């Protein structure tokens, strides 16, 4: 009886977090994923480790999918999240990024030298059916890039 109570309580708690469906006496826990609408891949790029305003330059990331230029993120400070959304067919894809920074003197953005580009500057990822893939790119102070992926939930 005690075990049953603990199980039910745990199930209720989980149902708060995800979604749940009741079928007879059994409770099945399921995730509620957002369906793609207009885009199914989102890149979020930022450098959260920056804590010195003089190093926090305006920048954007140029995005290449399968070796073709797809577009760019919006412009923002390096420490801020920059977004780029795209729609890709379900498949395995190659994402490559190129960082451009503001040259304030010449009032234009210039490509960051290769040596300073985030490394690695690419990631392979899968796009399943009916999922929105979110790829978060975090770049640390040394230019080391970390990619994490998730499927966008409701």
């Amino acid at each position: 009886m005690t075990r049953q109570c603990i199980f039910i309580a745990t199930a209720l708690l989980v149902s708060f977090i995800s979604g749940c469906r009741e079928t007879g006496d059994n409770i099945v826990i399921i995730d509620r994923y957002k369906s793609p609408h207009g885009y199914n891949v989102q890149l979020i790029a930022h450098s959260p480790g920056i804590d010195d305003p003089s190093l926090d330059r305006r920048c954007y990331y140029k995005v290449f999918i399968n070796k073709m230029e797809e577009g760019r993120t919006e412009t923002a400070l390096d420490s801020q999240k920059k977004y780029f959304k795209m729609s890709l067919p379900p498949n395995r894809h190659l994402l490559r990024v190129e960082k451009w920074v503001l040259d304030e003197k010449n009032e234009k953005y210039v490509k960051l030298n290769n040596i300073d580009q985030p490394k690695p500057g690419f990631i392979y990822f899968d796009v399943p059916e009916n999922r929105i893939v979110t790829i978060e790119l975090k770049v640390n102070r040394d230019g080391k890039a970390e990619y994490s992926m998730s499927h966008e939930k409701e």
Partner: protein
Amino acid sequence: MIVKRILFILLCIFMLVSCGKDYVSEQEPNDLFNQAMDIQFDKEIRGFLQKTTDRDIYRIIADTDSVADINVTGVKGINIAIRLWEEKDGRTLLKVIDDVRKSSPERFANLFMKTGMTYYAEITYGEKDSKKASAQDYYSLTIKKRDAGNDEIEPNDMFEQATILIPGTEISGYFSPSYNRSNENKDTLHREEDWFEITVDMETETPVLMDVFMTGVQGINSELYLFGPDKQEISKSDNGQRGSGEEIRGIGIKKSGRYYVMVTCKNYEANHDDPYYLTAVIRESDSSKEMEPNGDIESANIIINNHVGGEISNGGDADFYCYKPIDEFGIYRILLEPAGDDDFSVGIYDAKKVKITEINNSGAGAGETFPNLKMTDQFYLSVSSRIGGEGKGKYNLTVTPLQNIEDMELEPNDNKGEATKITNGRIAGFISHKGDKDFFLMDYEMRVNALFDITGVKGGDIKVSITDPLGYIIKTEQVRGAGNVKIKEMIEKRGYLIVESLNDNYENPYKIRIKVAE
């Protein structure tokens, strides 16, 4: 008897010798006016400044209206001078002729003498250096007379003494003497000036135009001035060259009165042999022609019927015009066409008389165009030649109001603050001046992906840039000639399109269409 014969022969010889002399000697004492020695015209008089207090006075009696040319040679080591007097209700000093140099001659080419009047020529020491007597070296004074024609009436060294100049009639004068010791004006000290007076009697309120022409004189770098009834300078001509004439053209006369012409020269130059000839002309004004003075924005001529013809008289000269639009808002095409191989520029000023830009894109002989000037009020234009240049000549200036203009850049839009907003997804513009940079603002409710379809300038090259919301350039493409280039770029709600000229062409527009998708 023999003695008598010898004396008679000697007397005859003496008479023969003295009759053959082509000069006469001064008769001292002649230091006072009542001791003055009468002169014979064209006859040389030899005299001496024998004491440091000496002066020699000669009397000239005019039997007809005539002009005297007074010439005295130099005396070694002495600064000699001539003072000219007129006997009229006492004696009046007319002129002091003194070039303040030792051993040099003095000359005054044209003293006007009136019938029956008595004049005196006083030969004396000049102001420079200590006075030094000379009993050995004589001076030679010669006064020649000629009939008075249509000459200036010297002395006419100030406007109160101005010689009357009748429009349409030529008058002559001399750059003589080199120094006028009576001129005590600090700015023009001892400068010789000839003043003339023109009376303008206007029958209607319609302005008339005055032209003044003066011939050049060898060795003289002359200047010509025109003054109004209030003695204020209206115009000046100085081409800066020795031996060439001066002219003031198309001066607008709006009220009756006495106008004054003043002739002078630089560096105390003189020419006692060759006269200058001066003419003034009064003519009807023409609203399609420039009316001087319009050398500053305050005296700008109003452009009537969108067109005016004018003339630049010398390098550095400028003509100003005011354009008063019929509508409150308008776009105008400005075109300046030189008549010859001249290189003129056009300045554009707003209603507050603040200069907006200067157009000087083309070389000599080519026109200047500003294809699309946006103005919401009256504005001013200036036409000028390069400062220090030789540019002078005629030109035509045309202002054409452009009708039914939509989706056109609104100049000036040379920076972000003046950017023309794109509202209908398309825009066209011109390279308006050298180094022109056109800014356009794109403003959307959300972030959009845009496709820019750019058609370049026929005969020119441009560079098109797209910026982030702050105006920093993200992407740039060049468009050669009338070629077509497409650019895809994201606009983060707001951004700027910048078109820069790489190779100027002021006649043909560029066109840009923008298709957006979310």
